[in-house]
């Protein structure tokens, strides 16, 4: 027998948000493919504000959907360091997203 929270959770549709890496004018970006794509500058020390906007978008979608971030390879992007880092980052992010989902208000 599922709890109310579990039933609500089960009834939420899963929303996949793809992310990929790209380079533009020598700057590496992690791109979250929302309706309006959001780019996070990997070369900037303080990319937190950009990440904050991403988090806001993820959180607002979590109200009515189960959200999963999927890293998608970009054949044109070859910087191995950032590829490895971002894969690891997305893994951690998904884990935290799942934990937050358990505490979402009804």
């Amino acid at each position, binding site marked *: 027998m599922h709890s109310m929270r579990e039933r609500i959770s089960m009834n939420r549709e899963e929303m996949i948000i793809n992310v990929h890496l790209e380079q533009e004018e020598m700057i590496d970006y992690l791109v979250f493919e929302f309706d309006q794509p959001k780019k996070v500058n990997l070369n900037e020390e*303080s990319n*937190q504000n950009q*990440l*904050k906007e991403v988090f806001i978008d993820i959180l607002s979608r979590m109200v009515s959907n189960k959200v999963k971030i999927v890293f998608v390879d970009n054949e044109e992007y070859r910087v191995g360091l950032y590829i490895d*880092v*971002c894969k*690891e980052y997305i893994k*951690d*992010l998904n884990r935290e997203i799942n934990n937050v989902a358990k505490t979402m208000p009804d």
Partner: protein
Amino acid sequence: MKIDLHCHTKKVKKGDAITRNVTAEVFCKKVIDSDVKIVAITNHNCFDYEQYLQFSKAVGEYCSIWPGIELDICCKKEKGEQKRGHLIVIANPKNAKDFADATNILIGEVQPDEFIGDVKIVYGLLDKCDCIYIPHYHKKPGFSDEDIEELSNLLEDKSRLFKETADYRSLGVFSNFDYSMMIGSDVQDWNVYENSTFANLRLPIQTFEQFCLLARKDVQVINTLLNQKKKREITVSPCKGVFFELPFYNDINIIFGQKGTGKSEIINSLKKYCVDTSTSSSVYIGNEKEVDFSKLIKVENVVVSPNKMGLASMEEEFQELYEWSEELPTSLMKYVSWYTTKDNNRNKGRMKITESVHIEDAQENERLEQDYNTIKDFLNSDFKEISLEDYITEEEKQSLLRLIQRLVESIGAQNLKQWREDKSIELTNWSIDKIKSIADKCSDSISKPSSTGFYDFARKRIRLYKIINQIKRALEEDDKVEMEYLGTIEDKGEVYIQTRYRMLKRDSRTNEFALGIKSLRKCKESFDEIMDKAFSDSISAAVEVFREHFEEGIKDISCFIGIVKETVLEDGSEYKPSNGERGILLMQRTLEEDSDVYLLDEPELGMGNSYITSTILPKLNDLAKQRKMVVVATHNANIAVGTLPYASILRTHENGEYSTYFGNPFCDELVNIEDEEDIRNWTKESMHTLEGGKNAFYERKDIYESGRNDN
């Protein structure tokens, strides 16, 4: 004042003691020595008019002698046997001769030992002499309750009927049950007359008429242990620098006199006396009724408490909202730094903890915390004061206590488990960060960030959302209404003071709130803004707006509770009483309060005489019967005269001098408190001050009586 309404002066019947015979001289001496002021001569089946005149002359001004007779009356049969009872009949001394003639007709030629009268015949012959009647009651030979009822039914004025008991103790008992009682000496031996039991009148009187007036006012005319009319000597001040003592009875006390003679100031003195002596009092000031009524519906005196609306104060939530701050995500550069340095040190590479992430908190169980607090409050509540064994068996009591203990332990255990989990996680995460920090320093490398920051970021936003949700739900709470009975207005019904507690609404008014309504509305708007932006970028600006309102003083939900106080009818519809009706309602409220002292200053202002006589007078008389001290300063004759006050205080201002006179309608005198020789007539002064003078009074009487007879 001692009286003796059952006094024998001659041996008449065979059974009478010879020592009942007394001469005028001895009678006079004995009466004076005993300090008796009224004596009714009531010999058995005989009224000796000559002796009555002789004895009246002997005592002169010292004592009043009333003509009377003690008759054998035929009573209802008891167990088939004819019974007889004794009935004392006393006439107005003005009619002594008529009384003598009537008793002669009644007794006729029958010998006293053989006479037995019929109560109807006795009444028919003697009542025209203006009589009072005192049957023996629980005193042999006595009247039964049926006999007394038969006699009572004959009397137009029931206050003329008293009952005589055998002793003072029985009299006290019957008095306590509101029987109208009397006792007399029933003297057997004049040698020891002074040892007889005498009745003590509550007030001194001079005439038969005054005695009957006193009987009309109070069922009890004589003092008993429990029914004494007590009085207090109280210092009053009618103007600055002037003080004197006046006696005030636990009955109605009237202060009257022309305007400007200090009547209101005397009332104020009594108010102060009550405060100084911690005596409970209720006060009504006629010319302050508007102000006093307005005070009743003032909201400033009402304490605003969220409890009234079944809400918690939400102080903690407001504080949490004030202190809220955004959690920033972990910069991606930190992940890059970790990745680029992770192979710098092989040993560090083997410390896998340097790559671990924070454990997220266990899911918050708000219900568990609530239940834990509830059980804690319960155990500290008055529950432990209950003597359970008074209501349930010992077995049930032990079972209940065991179950409660089991519940406490279970909730406590779960709460402890939750706490351990929370603390463990907290400690673990701290340990991870600490180890990483040390490892980084020792290896000149950067460990993997413990978190992307999303969990903390989201948790904060969600917490903000929950707080705002709670506050907004509280702001939507339904109105709560309290009704307090105020009084009753003829044709309108019951009137209540309705206090409505309601959250800030579109139609709320400024005077409902302690804080400015504009500020409150803006703060409420900020809550809506915060809720809209809970998952948006501009949340911080929205919270900052709230912070400004918090610093202005909006720190909990009670600020938003508006109070509306108004007068309503029973159906809840608003009703604004007129000026006169306000006085009526205030007066009712004052007189319904349970106090020892009631002080009324010109209660007649704005009230019709019809209301005064139909409602106020009965209530005042009722308070007097309850032995409350009622003091009324008035210009109204209905109140000043109609209440038959125990004390009448007249204030005068003549030839530049103020004087105070004290008396009552029963003795018909008002004596100057500073000069015992200066005596005024109560009737004359009342007529002059309250009725506009004797002529005006009788002119009005003639006008009324000149109308139709059926008026």
